[in-house]
């Protein structure tokens, strides 16, 4: 059982929780995730570790409310408990000084991007951050990212904040302007797909961090499998980061929809219990 220390909403549907998990806090590195189960009847779902405080033994989780499990988690209050937290899982991001790094975060994907971008900056890279969101209200962690980025470009779909347009517009601007040595893209699958197509044109090595369906998170089940460079890989143990130019995004997007109907049945039922 892991106690919730604080909880706040970063936007209408995105919650940030600081959770007691001393062993995970000690061991985690940027890019890793935990598997969380809310209660005895809950699913096991993967959540990226957005931040950790070794001294206080806590980790930060950021979650978007989209279905039963995420709704349950984002409804927890300080003093409540998560039934299970296990990790840190997955391979940590390979952090090294390469020159200029372009950090591209879309929607709630900015949360997992945050610790990776910070580590890349700390390693001595020039860090240019491009953030994308549907609108101003949904943009998260802008101040936090600005604190260590050399430059921040914000794109919103509706132009309510920053500049109007898809994230790829902001990214291409940078790619045209100056040499970039590494790009990191984290966000919805379709966003990562188009960012990867773009950076490929500019020959910029790019990594994407994937958030697929998982059960155990330790390599046991294969629910998370994706095709990378024509080979089947497990996101939980071989990833979560892969060469963004090699990922079969279409297959991944289909697999993410495996339980679309069941998710709706579950969520409708859950919402009924609330009213």
């Amino acid at each position, binding site marked *: 059982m892991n106690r919730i220390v604080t909880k706040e909403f970063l936007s209408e549907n995105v919650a940030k929780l600081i959770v007691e998990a001393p062993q995970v806090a000690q*061991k985690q590195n940027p890019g890793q995730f935990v598997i969380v189960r809310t209660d005895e009847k809950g699913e096991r779902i993967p959540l990226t570790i957005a931040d950790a405080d070794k001294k206080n033994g806590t980790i930060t989780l950021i979650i978007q409310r989209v279905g039963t499990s995420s709704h349950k988690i984002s409804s927890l209050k300080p003093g409540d408990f998560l039934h299970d937290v296990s990790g*840190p899982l997955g391979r940590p991001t390979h952090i090294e000084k390469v020159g200029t790094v372009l950090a591209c975060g879309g929607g709630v994907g900015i949360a997992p991007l945050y610790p990776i971008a910070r580590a890349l900056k700390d390693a001595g890279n020039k860090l240019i951050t491009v953030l994308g969101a549907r609108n101003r209200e949904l943009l998260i962690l802008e101040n936090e990212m600005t604190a260590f980025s050399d430059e921040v470009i914000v794109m919103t779909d509706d132009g309510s904040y920053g500049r109007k347009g898809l994230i790829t517009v902001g990214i291409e601007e940078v790619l045209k302007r100056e040499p970039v040595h590494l790009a990191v893209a984290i966000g919805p699958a379709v966003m990562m797909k188009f960012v990867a197509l773009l950076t490929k044109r500019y020959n910029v090595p790019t990594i994407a961090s994937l958030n697929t369906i998982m059960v155990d998170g330790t390599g*046991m089940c294969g629910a998370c499998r994706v095709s990378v460079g024509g080979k089947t890989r497990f996101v939980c143990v071989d990833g979560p980061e892969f060469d963004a130019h090699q990922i079969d995004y279409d297959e991944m997007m289909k697999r993410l929809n495996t339980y679309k109907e069941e998710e709706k049945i579950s969520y409708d039922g859950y919402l009924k219990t609330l009213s």
Partner: protein
Amino acid sequence: MPVDPQELNNDRSQEWRSELRSRLSAKERSGLPRVKMPERAPMERILGFMEVNTGLSEEMAVQESRRCLDCSTPSCISGCPVNINIPGFIKRIEKKDFLAAARKLKETNALPAVCGRVCPQETQCEATCVYQKMKKPPVAIGYLERFASDCERLTGTISIPKIEKKKSTRIAAIGSGPASLTFAGQMAKFGYQVTVFEALHELAGVLSYGIPEFRLPKSIVRSEISYLEALGVTFERNVIVGKTLTIDDMKKQGFQGFFIGSGAGLPKFMHIPGENSIGVYSSNEYLTRVNLMKAYQFPQYDTPIVRGKRVAVIGGGNTAMDSVRTAVRLGADKAMIVYRRSEQEMPARIEEVHHAKEEGVEFLTLTNPTEYFADESGRVRQMKVQKMGLGAADDSGRKRPVPIPGSEYLIDVDTVVVGVGTDPNPLIPRTIKGLEVTKWGTIVVNEETMQTALPEIFAGGDIVRGGATVILAMGDGKKAAESLDAYLLGKFPGR
């Protein structure tokens, strides 16, 4: 593992046992028919996950126990990987002292209610029963083991065997499947402070996530765990050794001896086209969703599963049988086993094959999938299979399946479960420096002692064997405990 013949003999020479032997002649005993395990009717059991075998009645058990000839040199014991004193517990059933029978079992076996259900007795103790020589069906040792341990559990008072003087030495078992549980129980009996570390939120490894409720009710697994807790074993869930905690961290915490029983948890796929389509599962995922996450109770439980109407399970082992029978219970109209060899070569227990057939499972033997086809949403809709012939025997001694050219055809499916085996989980071996590992990823041990290349680390079960049975894993756990005890006491012969 040596059995102490003196101890066996002392037990056998007790007055009550001699008296019992004299009641019936060997001829009378061997003339009795072998008991049949009562089971739920197929049409009833496929509606849910209730246990199929319902267990012997007292009368049936006592009657069956009379068949045991109480041999002076019992050959059955040599067939048991943990060397249970088989006639010893059976004769206590004949004496109608069922709790004493359970205690006898627990002297050597920490999980008798599990073994009585899932051990392949037909290839072990029952295969070496003296009745085999007489061309008669062997004593139903497995049924009797289950009976005695169930009796004890139902009384609600679980006996705790004698524990040697408490020691302060801390011991860690990694993984909580049958190998680790047996190891932990044995070390606790020796008086050590044992902690078991489990990566998942639930204990017991394959007994929890793998074997379905209808074959091994989880309440039984839980009760075996509480028995270990009563022995003083501590359990820590959600700890992934190598990630959450390393062996070095554990040494700093004062642990002095280790057992790795992390299993063969990595699913094998066949790497054929279309295998990543929606609805194609590994048997691990399929069974984990149902058994561990209770997806069969969705949406009361949050974890979903695809409830296929036309389900093909690839493979011929117990895991494949568990998967296909699970599919039947999830409402499949057509549930198929697709196996590349013939039924004769199937590694599954005969009982499981028999039960599956009773439940309407179709067996497509000498058939192998070569490709899956999905619809535009990515869901599997058809599979291409190829007929196989049998060639010369391969390394496993079984006839090698050979594809028959031009024999391909299509089968409509909406769910596929790939149950063609598992590989060892590399997580732990990868994070321990100096551990010797084979090219298959299994940990190298001295087979006599289960000691690894690192003297204070022992290993057993599927992480060493690469995919075997519950009872062999338990045998390893027991052997490792005895060796580690000797090692810690400085009595170890060395490698």
